[in-house]
């Protein structure tokens, strides 16, 4: 059953990719069908909790397992996948290559969230990265989009090296089967290395500070890609990994602190970046970094249930928002906020879905993210007050950017907006938006208790009434203020440009690397190969000297002797013909002589 869950999307996706253009006409139905099967299988495995394993490398198996956390994850992934593919059926330019890659992408995420060993995890993890490369650069005829895929892949792969490090360190520390469950009990030293590797990989994948820039470039992909990549896959994988390995973080206090503060700072900084964006998709992308920051913060403060709740709520919310942005982009060809003024009035189904999701994103009670984020903040409060305050400030920022987007799309606009939103587009949105809103039931203590029991063995602190009240009031107040003064929100250039992170990465990493590579290539040509050529030339010069001087002298002597000796002299010059096979024959003769010599040596003893 579990093999089926991961095999259906991966095989269907692979088949679509192999078939190429021939499958374009059937791609959307096949994609949706595979996604629906995956959803059905997800629900079954979530109920049955199976585990499978196959012998793979020496002492290391390829294992999948569904526990409570994985059960929640597989259902979330499948639900979002179905919705996104239904939406994508409304975009005729997305062909078999697109649907195939989406299925592989989601299939890899399904393996990631059920993996039990490092080798399983790493395989799925990197395949997901490669699929994201191909999806972001989907419109490859435009150089910028293609290189956006490269930026995303290289950034995440750079961080992935952490997982290779962690795998090796786990083996060195004595976790012979490389099981993800054995890491917390490793000895000091190696455990620290494992934790460092895991943290690096997770922060890179989930686009946390300072890796956030690749997510900005990822906006060059089609909107359904963003809807999947930003919600239930890819960035979520980083958050998931930290939640899954929370025991490891718990056993390694410095790593937990790095994770907690990394998440909190990302939530704050990228929240500010989101407020300053003028492009709707860029605003949503920065908000993804910030919201995933809360999950990471939860993992660093032992709030596994809180982080998982945040992950699920954010997945539903953010997929709706990106799909709405995509619907408007298809209909109007516009994605900047000024060009989208009043668009919600023109397309009410999309507009209302967008608004519900955005209000949830703002953390307004009683919708989903209000409930989950407060659980995250409760864990932070339990840990340290500064952490809580940073988190609360970040929550206020999320209210600000969500309110700004909502206020703009509902602005009264005299202009007529042409264009159409297809039925496929509309079909996908309301159910997801309803889910995003209804998950607010998690605020009810008994519901939360049940949820926490499913995903986690240990229960974290719950928010007290005043925490819920404070965050609710803050969200409403900030949202209200921004909605009123929507055109006066400050947008410093540094924040608009994502804090200059991409430029920094280029100047600090890419350019020095290129310079080193070029210098080494010149070194290789001139010094290493030059040395070889010089010694060869020296050899040739030596040979010439021998030929001119020694041979000449010998020749002179020979000339004085009889004709027979002169003939011998000619014979001696003969082998130096400059022809390779002659040299080779000489070498073979030399070899034979050597063999005879050896023979005499061995007999002599």
């Amino acid at each position, binding site marked *: 059953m579990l093999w089926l869950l991961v095999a259906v999307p991966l095989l269907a996706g692979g088949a679509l990719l192999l078939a190429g253009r021939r499958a374009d006409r059937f791609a959307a139905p096949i994609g949706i069908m595979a996604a629906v099967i995956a959803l059905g299988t997800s629900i079954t495995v979530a109920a049955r909790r199976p585990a499978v394993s196959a012998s793979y490398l020496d002492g290391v198996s390829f294992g999948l397992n569904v526990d409570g956390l994985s059960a929640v994850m597989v259902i979330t992934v499948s639900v979002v996948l179905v919705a996104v593919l239904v939406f994508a059926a409304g975009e005729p330019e997305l062909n078999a290559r697109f649907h195939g890659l989406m299925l592989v992408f989601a299939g890899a995420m399904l393996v990631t969230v059920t993996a039990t060993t490092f080798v399983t995890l790493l395989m799925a993890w990197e395949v997901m990265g490669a699929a994201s490369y191909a999806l972001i650069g989907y419109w490859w*005829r435009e150089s910028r989009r293609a290189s956006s895929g490269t930026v995303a892949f*290289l950034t995440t792969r750079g961080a992935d090296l952490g997982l290779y490090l962690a795998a*090796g360190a786990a*083996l*060195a520390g004595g976790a012979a089967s490389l099981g993800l469950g054995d890491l917390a009990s490793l000895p000091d030293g190696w455990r620290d290395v494992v934790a460092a590797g895991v943290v690096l990989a997770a922060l890179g994948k989930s686009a946390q500070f300072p890796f956030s820039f690749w997510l900005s470039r990822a906006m060059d992909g089609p909107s359904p890609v963003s809807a999947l990549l930003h919600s239930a896959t890819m960035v979520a994988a980083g958050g998931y990994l930290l939640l899954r390995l929370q025991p490891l973080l718990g056993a390694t206090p410095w790593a937990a602190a790095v994770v907690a503060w990394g998440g909190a700072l990302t939530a704050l900084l990228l929240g500010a970046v989101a407020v300053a964006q003028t492009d709707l998709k860029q605003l949503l992308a920065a908000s993804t970094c910030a919201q995933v920051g809360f999950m990471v913060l939860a993992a660093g403060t032992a709030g596994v249930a809180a982080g998982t709740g945040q992950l699920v709520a954010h997945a539903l919310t953010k997929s709706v928002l990106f799909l709405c942005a995509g619907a408007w982009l298809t209909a109007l060809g516009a994605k900047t906020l000024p060009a989208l003024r009043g668009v919600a009035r023109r397309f009410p189904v999309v507009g209302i879905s967008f608004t519900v999701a955005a209000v949830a994103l703002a953390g307004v009670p009683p919708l989903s993210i209000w409930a989950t984020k407060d659980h995250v903040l409760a864990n932070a409060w339990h840990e340290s007050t500064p952490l809580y305050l940073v988190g609360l400030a970040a929550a206020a920022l999320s209210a600000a950017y969500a309110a700004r987007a909502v206020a703009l799309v509902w602005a009264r606009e005299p202009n007529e907006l042409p264009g159409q939103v297809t039925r496929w587009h509309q079909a996908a949105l309301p159910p997801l938006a309803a889910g995003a809103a209804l998950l607010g039931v998690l605020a009810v203590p008994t519901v939360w208790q049940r949820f926490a029991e499913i995903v986690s063995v240990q229960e974290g602190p719950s928010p007290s009434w005043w925490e819920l009240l404070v965050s609710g009031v803050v969200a409403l107040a900030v949202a209200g203020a921004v909605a009123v003064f929507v055109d006066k929100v400050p947008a410093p250039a540094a924040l608009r440009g994502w804090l200059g992170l991409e430029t920094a990465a280029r100047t600090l990493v890419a350019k020095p690397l290129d310079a080193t590579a070029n210098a080494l290539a010149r070194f290789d040509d001139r010094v290493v*190969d030059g040395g070889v050529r010089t010694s060869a030339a020296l050899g040739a010069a030596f040979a010439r000297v021998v030929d001119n001087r020694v041979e000449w002298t010998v020749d002179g002597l020979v000339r004085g002797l009889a004709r027979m000796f002169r003939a011998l002299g000619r014979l001696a010059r003969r082998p130096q013909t400059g022809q390779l096979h002659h040299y080779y024959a000489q070498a073979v003769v030399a070899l034979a002589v050597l063999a005879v010599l050896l023979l005499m040596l061995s007999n002599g003893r």
Partner: protein
Amino acid sequence: MLSIVVFLPLAVAAVLLAVPRLGDAVVRWTWVVASAVEVVLAVVLWVGYRDNTAGAGYGYGYEVNRRWIPSVSSGYHIGVDGISLPLIALTAVLFLACAVYSLRMTDRIRSFAVLFLFLETVCLGVFVSLDLILFFVFFDLSIVGMYFVIAGWGHRDRVRAALQFFLYTFLGSLALLLGFIGLYLAAEPNTFDMVALTEQNPLAGKGTVAALVLLAIFVGLAIKTPTVPFHTWLPPAHTEAPAAGSAILAGVLLKLGTYGFVRIAMPMLPDTWRDWAWAIIAVGVVSVLYGALVALAQQNFKRMIAYTSVNHMGYIVLAVGAAGLVSTSDEQAQSLASTGAVTQMVSHGLITGALFLLAGVLYERGGTYDLGSYGGLAASTPRFAGLTAVAAFASLGLPGFSGFIAEFQIFTGSLPGAPVATALSFLGILVTAALFLRAFQRLFLGPPTKTVAADLTATETVAIAPLMVLAVVLGLFPRFLLDLVEPAAHTLGTLVSR
């Protein structure tokens, strides 16, 4: 049986030479059929091989031991084990791919086919040899065969490149011979038999002499592999060689060097190997990083792939070095490292073989390997773009392909013994990712700049695609290979830990 597998191509070559006035089509198809028969025979060998290394060690399958040059106690001793068998299969598969790829070739096809069949015998001969002189003869003849392939069918600067290739690698094999003689003289009684030498461990405890012998053998093999700083013959040889020649050169001939490490240097000089493991690891790491960085700076597609070979071979050297380091502490890590090294040999052969054939396709379409002369090719050649993308991702070690299985084992197995060196070599897979994505983008993506080029033909697809299919099968279901390699790697581990 094994002798038939080895000498069948040579026999076919002799027939091709002897029969007068053969049509080109007959020659081509004879070549393809002979190569296909070799693949079948390799599969038969694989299926029929029973692992008898358990227990005492040194068990070889299909062993033949005849008198040859008894005066220096060198015999015609051949046999296979879990390390050589995968490489024999790889050799057969790659030669078949090259035969199919050359189906539409017209330039002196008969001599070309004869040379390749000769090379096939020679390469198989190296992998089955259990006698140092036999090994050396085959090892050396491979250089001769490849010299004529490059000099006869190469591009513009072929003669110079071929000469450099020949002299450089010939120098290497002379160093190797020196080392072999050292082993011979140290053995008691004197012998060139590899099994006997392995059993004897003749240079145990002979400090400087042993180190010098290892140095000679190491340099000889390192030139062939090649590792930094002995690699400079490789880029010109590859750039000038015809596509099929490059595929064999990278896919099979480089493996002769790395195979020598695991077959000769490690088991016959175990304690010296352990003593100098740190230096070997250093050579490996430098090759990994230097190869990757220099490849990143290349503007010539084929030269770039050639340098990635230096990088990929570096992982193998790192792994065999680390297997010497971790030997005393962790058996699993050691086994992972050695198994990874063998897997990498097979994997690199498949993937880089495919990449060089694809580079040949590129040259045929555009007349140059210069990356800057292309752009947006994917528009007119979707199949070519797709297959190149697959090969590029396979080469950068993406999971799902054989390269990942190899590199993951190497990394995980080497890290316990040499943490810093291994962590540094991780950067190699990042740099190769960067260079492949960049090259792919320059060739295939963006707006089309050149006139429409033709997509892959059926012949080209049939030649190249199966290599990638094998890489995927190995990448997803590696057990069938690892079941064969792991026992041999364990044996190697016990031998080097003596």
